């Protein structure tokens, strides 16, 4: 019979292989830290550099400023004028306006579609709706921005008789389109994960399908739906291209959603190309970036925590 000689296993190779794999896994962790570190690093002069603070200290960026002696104190973002102005409030307002419009648009559509898909649709319809949403999700944001700029703006202007063609409403609707898939997916997941035993219990007591949905599924899925809204809001705040192309990019302070707006992300995108490396303007842009990072980080953390707790709760019920 054939002689067999087995090669002994190289423990060194095993060890090195495992080390390689585990070290690699920390890249994702490292990346988050590095992103924060390097963005924040360029923003530190706001806290430390006197020259920067002349123009853009935390105080100067937050509160109304008397930019010219004797004139009324106001907020203004005009980094490139003779007297550079770095109030963040117009940008913050713009960001929130666009995001809120986006959510007002995305929530009914996204949640509504999710409810329909989970509670009313038969299997075939569900198999149709899911790809539709995936297609919507796949559209690059620059294409949505393009559409808002070329088509939606004109449509809105004609229908509503607007002065400004590119405005918060225009950007907000397009933003909402980008957010719908997030809200839909998370909400629909939450609803379909409600255990069948819960539905059965309600049905066995005589509830018709809609009552089951209303009294059992929706309440159980509410945290999931909330998480979807939270995560969608995070996306709306951080989204860049759509607002860059569709909002008009005017950093003004106004309550009207028919005025042009400027968001944090669009500001960075629009102005970073022309800043002088190391200048106050450059520092402030990175500061805005750090703000965005922290804000979306917290929002996503919150959304994930809600989802995690929801999963625990649902699993507890079924065991």
């Amino acid at each position: 019979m054939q002689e067999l000689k087995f090669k002994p296993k190289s423990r060194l190779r095993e060890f090195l292989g495992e080390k390689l794999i585990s070290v690699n896994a920390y890249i994702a962790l490292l990346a988050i830290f590095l992103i924060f570190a390097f963005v924040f690093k360029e923003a530190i002069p706001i806290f430390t550099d006197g020259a920067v603070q002349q123009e853009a200290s935390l105080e100067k960026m937050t509160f109304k400023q008397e930019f010219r002696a004797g004139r009324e104190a106001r907020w203004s973002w005009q980094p490139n004028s003779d007297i550079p102005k770095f109030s963040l409030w117009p940008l913050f307002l713009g960001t929130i306006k666009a995001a809120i419009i986006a959510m007002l648009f995305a929530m009914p559509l996204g949640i509504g579609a999710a409810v329909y898909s989970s509670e009313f649709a038969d299997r075939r319809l569900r198999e149709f709706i899911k790809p539709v949403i995936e297609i919507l999700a796949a559209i690059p944001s620059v294409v949505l921005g393009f559409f808002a700029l070329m088509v939606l703006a004109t449509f809105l202007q004609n229908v509503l008789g607007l002065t400004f063609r590119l405005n918060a409403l225009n950007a907000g609707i397009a933003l909402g389109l980008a957010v719908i898939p997030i809200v839909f997916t998370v909400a629909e997941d939450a609803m379909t994960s409600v255990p069948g035993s819960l539905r059965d219990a309600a049905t066995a007591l005589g509830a018709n399908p809609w009552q089951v949905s209303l009294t059992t599924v929706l309440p159980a899925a509410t945290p999931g739906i909330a998480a979807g809204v939270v995560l969608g809001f995070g996306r709306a705040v951080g989204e860049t291209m759509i607002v860059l192309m569709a909002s008009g990019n005017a950093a003004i302070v106004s309550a009207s959603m028919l005025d042009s707006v400027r968001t944090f992300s669009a500001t960075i995108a629009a102005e970073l190309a022309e800043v002088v490396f190391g200048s106050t303007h450059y520092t402030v842009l990175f500061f805005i970036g750090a703000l965005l990072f922290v804000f979306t980080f917290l929002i996503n953390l919150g959304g994930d925590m809600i989802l995690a707790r929801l999963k625990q709760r649902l699993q507890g019920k079924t065991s």
Partner: protein
Amino acid sequence: MLVHENTDEVNSTEEIDDAIDEQSDTIPTRMKMSVRSLDFFYGNAQALYDISMDVAEHRVTALIGPSGCGKSTFLRTLNRMNETIAGTRQQGQVLLDGRDIYREFNDPSAIRTRVGMVFQKSNPFPKSIFDNVAYGLRVNGITDRHIIATVVEESLIQAALWDEVKDKLNNSAFMLSGGQQQRLCIARALAIRPEVILMDEPASALDPISTAKIEDLIGELKVKYTIVIVTHNMQQAARVSDHTGFFYEGRLIEDGPTRRIFTRPDKKKTEDYITGRFG
């Protein structure tokens, strides 16, 4: 006919049979593996309590007992397969040819080339029949194609599968029937020339004809190998094994020559199980 009633007749048939059994079992055979005071834990839960047992070379040892009694867990301690599950630990000794497989060997994979395993549900790799059998060789450093081809053929012959697959070695293993897949897994285990073969309910998922084929195979294999088989089928244990151990709730209640265990068990629990009073 299972339980022997205590009479004073000396020459009853059962006693003569037992005498023959005990004689044949005293044909010198060394203990291939020995287990001494083995405790086993899944995390904090103890699954095996103070097991001591010997596995004789070139014999078939059967482990029987109701489901959940620990016989599969025990089987897996014999080739350190429990280490693939997190949180397990054991105390006591498991000796292979006198050497403790846990303490004297650093690399568990070295044990597994000497103590092979066939699983309850056949688990061929998503590869060809040939590559399935060759897997063990390649993973242990054999690269010579000629050697591999020869050993693959040998193993398939030993597993009584060669004639059925010799023309389709490159077909996917999933094209075989359930019984054939299980024999393929046996061939795969044989290819690395283990000394001991552990079988965890090898025929429980198979039809009677395939089961019979595998039982015949076991009978043939014991000539060259040492076999430990877990089975919940007592008739199978009685048919196939030389030595039987009865497990109950993590303890080895009794072990001894198969004939005796099934006709004159010492412990009442064994007797109850064998007569079908539980399990």
